[in-house]
Structures are given as structure tokens and as C-alpha cells.
């Protein structure tokens, strides 16, 4: 049996009332709020977060591939999935790929992973999708967009939703686009884009896959597919394919709480659907953009045994409302800010970043074979490989020890107004990990008032800075919520 063996999601902690856009620019506010990636987040970090949520206690070494979908990658030339594979602790002999440019990249990657499993070239592939698209400030498009991510582990054992069929159509219509040099989305008149695009191709694909497998709408418990800003179009597309409103995975909750998350939209809706799915349910899942990919999923008994995870529900419940639209402009780099009055930092050294990639990106430390002490070293001079045990002095007699999925408690902290950061004060913590090990980290997604000695934190993969075009990633701590 081939199918989904686990799912996960990620929604940034920070949310902005759409009303704040109107306060800044005037005009009309759409209802609800949008999820806004923090200044230290991007598609790669959100993809890692969703993947961690998905993996739970799955051994990363058992995963044979990582497919990452985004239309907002940090690089035009340089793979994101390779960064994520180290962050997630995957083996070296895995297949990694980035899927991009299309808003249905999430379902394209899902289909590609399914095909690889069917072909027997992999037994388990992690498929993640994350997006953080930008529309120019002041327009209605900006209000509708949100940031988020979803992840699925596809495999052959402990399948919670079997993939029973797939079907794709390709359609050429530049409804929305970003040219290679564009920061912001461009769109053609939305009535035409929807009339001749979305509202045609969604019913066509849903009807097409049912015809291909000899099924009809009554054979499905749920139909799950992405929605445009105008949610009424979503319902009409489902109806056009013969579905009753009660069968439709509603898009409104995600739109009102998160916004449209690009190629992660359909995957996030599927996570939502799986959160309330029961064994035996049959789900028709589709994602649109330059065509449509559609899949037939059959939920199995194994879904009842899936370990708890945050998913969409958990992430929706944990949020911090932003009090300023300006912060959004700054975090996205849309407006320049006065630089701190000090000389620039010395540039990071790519050779050092490469040399220390496992410590930096993977949060690997050591456990001393002689005295058993676990250690991680991210010192001031460099994150150094540990060659000599800090406790017993043993040399090079260690086993690898990973800290990225371990909880920790704050041993000490400060909120530093002198350090130049995008969201002052700079909250820094010294944490003691469960099971041993101590290290300093930036504290992110925090409300300074809620921090105390003893506060429980978890590790989260974040972008530390962009330096000569290099996105430099590492881990930060954040309060467990």
C-alpha cells in the first residue's frame, strides 16, 4: 500500500488583522487576519517546521527523499531541499528536489513522490510545501495572502491514507505571475482569470479523475482543493463537479485565519481534512495552478494511531496579534530602515559555514563515549567541532548527538536593547536541554513578559541573516506553546 503515513503543518505565530492594512493605506478591509512570517522566517524555515511537525518521532534516517515546493525560494540558483535535508537529519543518499514556479507545485511534488514510491525507487519521501508570496503594499491582494506550510510523509508502511489514483491536466493561463525580477504578484483582471481559469479547470479535473476511476461524487466523503480569494468560487467549482456543500472541505477558516498560502494552500487544506478524517473516508484532493493535479485518497485504520501533532488546528490556536503594519513592512524588507549606527559586521565565511554545516544546520552535537556527557558548542568565536570533551578531556571519542528535536528549559535570559535586531529587544537565552547539554540561542516568537528562568523552550530552524546573498540558517529557541 502506498500513501500518506504522516502529516504536519506550520503557521507563523504572528498574525495581522487585515484591518491594519486599511489603517495604513485606506480602502476596504477583507475580514479576518493573515499569518505573517517573522523576520527570521522564510519558505525554507517554514518548510522545515512543517516537516518536523509531520515527522514526529519518525527516524529521519528511514526517509529516502525530500521534495520541497515553493514559489518563494531564497535562491534562484541553489537548492532549498538540500539545506532542509541537513536540518532534518536525513541521510546523504537521499533524493532531494525543489518544485517551484507553479501555484500547484505542492501537488506536483506530491504526485512525483507518489510515482517514485510506485516505481519502487524510494520507500519513503517527505513532501513539504511552503509559501510566503508578496503583493505590493496598499492593494487588496496583499490582504488576501498569508504565510504557511504543510508536509506529508509518503511511504509504504503504516499508511494512514492510501493514494488510490491520480490525474492531472495542464492549462496555460497567466492569471497571476511574477517575472524573474518581480518581488510582487501581478494579475490579469480577476473575473477573466477565474471565469476562464479556476472555475473551468477545477471541475474539469475533478470530473476527469472520477471518470478515469469509474467513481462519482457520492463515492467521496470529502473533496479538498484550494480556493481563490473569492471563496464563493470554491463552492461553485465543487458544485459544478457534482459535489454537495456538505462534502466540501471549507476554505473559509484558513482564509480568515491565515490567508492564501500559495502552493501550500491545497496541502494545508488536506492536513485540515485529515485532522477530522475517519477510517474508510475517501477524499478527493486537488491543487490548481497552470492546471490541476487530483488524487484519490482512502483513509485507513492507521490514522487513529497517528501520534499527536500540532497540524493546522494546533497552529491556529497559538498566535500573537501584531500591533503594527509597519513591522510587516520591515520584516519583509519592503521598506528600508535606518541602519544601526555602527560599522557592519564582518562577513560570514562560506568555508566555515560549509565546514560546520552539521552543527549549524542540523544542530548536531556529541555525546562523550568516556563520560557520557552530551555537548553542543556554539561559541562566540565559532561553532566549533568538539574535539576535546569539556568534562573529561577525552579526545575525538564521541558519538553524534542531535539536539534539534529536544526540549529545553531557560537557565538564564536577557532582553537586550543594545544588540541590533529587526525586532528589539534581542531576547537571548542560555538553555539546558532535557537529557543534558547547554547552549546559548536567540529566543524567537516570544513575548518578553512571558519569559522567566525555567520557561520551557523548543528548537526552531530560522534564518539568522542574509549575507552577500547567502541565507544563513541556524536554530533558535522558542517558548513551547
Amino acid at each position, binding site marked *: 500500500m502506498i500513501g500518506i503515513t504522516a502529516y504536519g503543518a506550520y503557521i507563523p505565530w504572528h498574525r495581522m488583522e487585515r484591518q491594519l492594512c486599511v489603517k495604513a493605506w485606506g480602502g476596504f478591509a477583507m475580514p479576518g487576519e493573515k499569518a505573517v512570517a517573522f523576520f527570521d522566517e522564510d519558505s525554507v524555515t517554514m518548510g522545515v517546521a512543517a516537516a518536523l511537525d509531520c515527522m514526529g518521532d519518525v527516524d529521519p534516517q528511514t526517509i529516502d527523499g525530500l521534495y520541497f515546493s515553493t514559489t518563494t525560494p531564497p535562491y534562484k540558483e541553489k537548492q532549498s531541499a538540500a539545506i532542509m535535508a541537513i536540518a532534518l537529519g536525513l541521510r546523504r543518499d537521499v533524493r532531494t528536489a525543489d518544485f517551484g514556479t507553479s501555484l500547484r507545485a505542492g501537488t506536483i511534488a506530491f504526485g512525483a513522490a507518489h510515482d517514485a514510491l510506485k516505481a519502487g525507487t524510494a520507500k519513503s519521501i517527505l513532501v513539504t510545501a511552503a509559501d510566503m508570496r508578496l503583493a505590493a503594499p496598499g492593494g487588496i491582494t496583499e490582504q488576501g495572502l498569508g504565510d504557511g506550510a504543510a508536509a506529508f510523509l509518503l511511504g509504504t508502511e503504516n499508511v494512514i491514507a492510501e493514494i488510490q489514483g491520480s490525474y492531472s491536466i495542464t492549462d496555460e493561463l497567466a492569471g497571476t505571475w511574477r517575472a524573474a525580477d518581480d518581488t510582487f504578484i501581478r494579475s490579469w483582471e480577476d473575473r477573466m482569470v477565474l471565469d476562464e481559469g479556476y472555475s473551468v479547470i477545477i471541475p474539469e479535473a475533478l470530473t476527469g479523475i472520477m471518470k478515469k476511476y469509474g467513481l462519482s461524487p457520492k463515492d467521496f466523503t470529502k473533496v479538498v482543493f484550494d480556493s481563490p480569494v473569492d471563496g464563493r468560487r470554491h463552492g461553485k467549482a465543487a458544485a459544478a463537479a457534482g459535489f454537495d456543500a456538505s462534502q466540501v472541505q471549507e476554505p473559509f477558516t484558513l482564509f480568515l485565519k491565515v490567508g492564501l498560502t500559495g502552493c501550500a494552500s491545497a496541502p494545508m487544506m488536506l492536513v485540515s481534512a485529515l485532522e477530522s478524517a475517519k477510517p474508510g473516508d475517501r477524499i478527493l484532493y486537488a491543487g490548481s495552478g497552470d492546471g490541476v493535479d487530483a488524487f484519490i485518497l482512502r483513509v485507513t485504520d492507521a490514522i487513529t494511531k497517528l501520534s499527536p501533532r500540532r497540524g493546522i488546528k494546533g497552529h491556529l490556536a497559538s498566535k500573537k496579534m501584531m500591533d503594527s503594519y509597519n513591522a510587516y513592512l520591515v520584516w519583509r524588507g519592503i521598506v528600508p530602515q535606518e541602519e544601526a549606527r555602527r560599522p557592519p559586521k564582518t562577513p560570514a565565511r562560506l568555508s566555515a559555514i560549509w565546514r560546520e554545516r552539521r552543527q549549524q544546520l542540523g544542530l548536531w552535537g556529541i555525546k562523550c563515549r568516556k563520560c557520557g556527557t552530551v555537548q553542543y558548542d556554539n*561559541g562566540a*568565536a565559532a561553532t566549533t567541532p568538539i574535539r576535546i570533551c569539556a568534562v573529561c578531556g577525552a579526545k575525538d571519542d564521541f558519538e553524534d548527538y542531535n539536539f534539534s528535536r529536544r526540549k529545553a528549559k531557560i537557565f538564564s535570559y*536577557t532582553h537586550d536593547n543594545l544588540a541590533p535586531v529587526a525586532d528589539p529587544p534581542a531576547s537571548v537565552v542560555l538553555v539546558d536541554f532535557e537529557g543534558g547539554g547547554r547552549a*546559548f540561542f536567540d529566543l524567537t516568537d516570544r513575548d518578553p513578559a512571558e519569559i522567566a528562568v525555567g520557561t520551557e523552550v523548543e528548537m526552531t530552524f530560522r534564518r539568522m541573516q542574509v549575507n552577500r546573498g547567502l541565507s544563513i540558517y541556524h536554530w533558535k529557541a522558542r517558548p513551547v506553546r
Partner: protein
Amino acid sequence: MPGSIKDRVAIVGMGCTQFGELWGKGPTDLIVEAVSEALADAEIEIKDIQAVWSGTLFSGNGGRTVSEALRLPYLPVTRVENACGSGHEAVRGASYAVAAGIYDICLAVGYEKLKDEGMSGLPGMQNRTGTHYESSMPGVFAMMATRYFNRYGLSPQEGKAMLGRISVKSHHNGALNPKAHLRREITLEQVLNAPIIAWPLGLFDCCGVSDGAAAAIIVRADMVKSFKNRPVYVKALQICASPTSGRMVTDYDYTHVEEAYRAGIAAYKEAGITNPRKEVSMAEVHDCFSITEAVTMEDLQFSPRGRVKEDIEAGTFELTGPLPVQPDGGLKCFGHPIGASGIRMLYEPYLQFQGRAGKRQIKDPKIALAHNMGNEPYAPVVSVCIVGV
């Protein structure tokens, strides 16, 4: 079996510039002014110097910065850097060379032109990978205050008041010192109401950022009779560099500095001191932040562990107390031109021993301790110098 420097070398001349934001002065000005004063004080000329040790963190280019400034006549000049202990390191190098019998007269000079660095603080230190947590020096010392308050059950208000008294005391002394950068009295209320730099440390918990230089002429002890000044003998020179395990293993309490404790023990042993609280007449310690001075009092065994608050409240470390600390105003009022600080800390005892400290004069001091601490509390290089008559 390590030897001892005790009473083998003596300081017979010293100089110290005005400290402050000396926009109109560069490293050359600072070096020339400090060394000229030291030479005049010892009544010698540059040609009498046989070798030079210079200490600086940011402002030097090998030994040449000093040889160029002073137009030295082709002398050996060694530039040393040991973080905030660079000044002490220069004294140590010069003292050991003299004690070894290689030279008779050496110059130690420490200097730093911090205010060319373009910021109110120390220049940013980024690690090679660009992934260092975003904390300033006030931040990492603030975390020691957080631990100290937590461990000894002090509310933030109680803790900040304890630390505030340290700064009030140092400002009182600094106001009496014409060479200090910050020369004014402050009140506890001002300290407690000041803007927060890094919680829980506020503006007055942090030392100034200044330019400055200081210099010392070091000679063999048996030569002191040929100099007019009352000699100040070096009793101990100890340095302890951290294995920096405090940030990696969970048994470090972050309420003390192990390296300071160990450097203190080694220095007391070298100087033959058995009861530091009784035998030390005065101390200049590395009060980069108020919390640093507080824990240093415990690390150097002036106060029992966890009980420095009692001594602070009793006035033990005030100018009129039994063990004056920072009689010159400390880093708090002098600021911390890195390479200069260690030698500036010896300048005050030098004046005090010779009865030249003016309104700050302590009655009949015998033994003085100078303590430098570079880098973070969990990863420092600490030096302890003891001098006496």
C-alpha cells in the same frame, strides 16, 4: 614547580592619559602622552628603555604602532592581546623579561582608541559562520545578574538596588579623579530609573566607552635605589584562560566566574596572602558591569558566596571602608579602552602607595589588587595582578 615574580621587579614610573571620548586624539597621541608621563615620572629617557611590551585589542598593528608613535630606536617591541586583560599581559611580559635577567628596564604600555570604532559599545564580534546569537556584552552579563537574583532569591528591585549601590560608589570616587571620563556623583534613584540596556542592567550598570592609554616602567628590584620614586613591587601576576565549558555543561551556576576565583587563589599564593579580605588594602577590579564587580568580590574572597550584598550595604568597598574597591572610579568612570585598562588599574595603587592620590587618598595602603576579565562570564580570560610596597 612554578617560580614566583614576588618582589623581583618593581614599577618606578607610570603614566596615564585623560580617559574619555577623545575625538581629537589618535593612538599615537595616547601612546606618546602616557609614555612621556611615565618617563618623566621615572626621570629617564626613551634611550634608557631596552624593550617594550604593548597591549591593545583593536588599535594596534603589531609592535609597530608603538615604535612608530615613539620613534623608538630600533627596540624590540612585542604586541600582546589577551582580550580585556591585554594591559596586564603587557605588564606580565615586561616583568618576566626583567625578572629573567634579559633586560634591566622595560616599558609596558596599554592603549585603545575605541572611539574610532563608530559605535557606543565594543565593536561587533561575529563568529565565522554568521550564526552567533544576537547578544551584546551587556546582554551576557545581564544574564549573570538574572541568575544571581534567581539563585539568591532577590527580586529584580532588590537585585537592582544592590547593583545600583556599586555604581553610586564608583561614581563618587570617579568624581574625585581628574583623569576619569565620567566625573559626577549619581544617586541610587537615578540608577534605578535609568533606561534598560539589557534587562536587568540599566545605563548606570554599564561602564563607559572611552579612549585612553597608560604606561609603566618596570625595572629589576635591586635597581630601585637609582630611581627617586617610592618603588611599587610586583607581588603576583596570574592569568587564567577559560576552557569555556560553562556554556556547554549544566553544572556551571553563572553566578560566579570560576577563572577569577582560580586566578585569585593563584595570585594570593604567589603573593603569600592568606586572608585577602584583611590583607588587601584596595582593589581595582574589572567592573565592566555592576554585576561583574558584585560577583568578583565573592570570587576574590572579599565577601562570602552569595553575601556581597551585606558588604555593599555596609559600605565595605567605599573609599572610607575597610577595603576600598575602585578608588579611582573604576571602569565605571574611566570607561574601558581595552588595552589601557589593566595598566590604568595599576596607576591608582601606584599613586596611592606614593601618597599622590589627592582626595581619594587611602591611609597607608600596603597591598593592592588589580583584576581584569576579558570576554563573557562563562568564557573569560582573567588576570589578577598584586602589587605592594
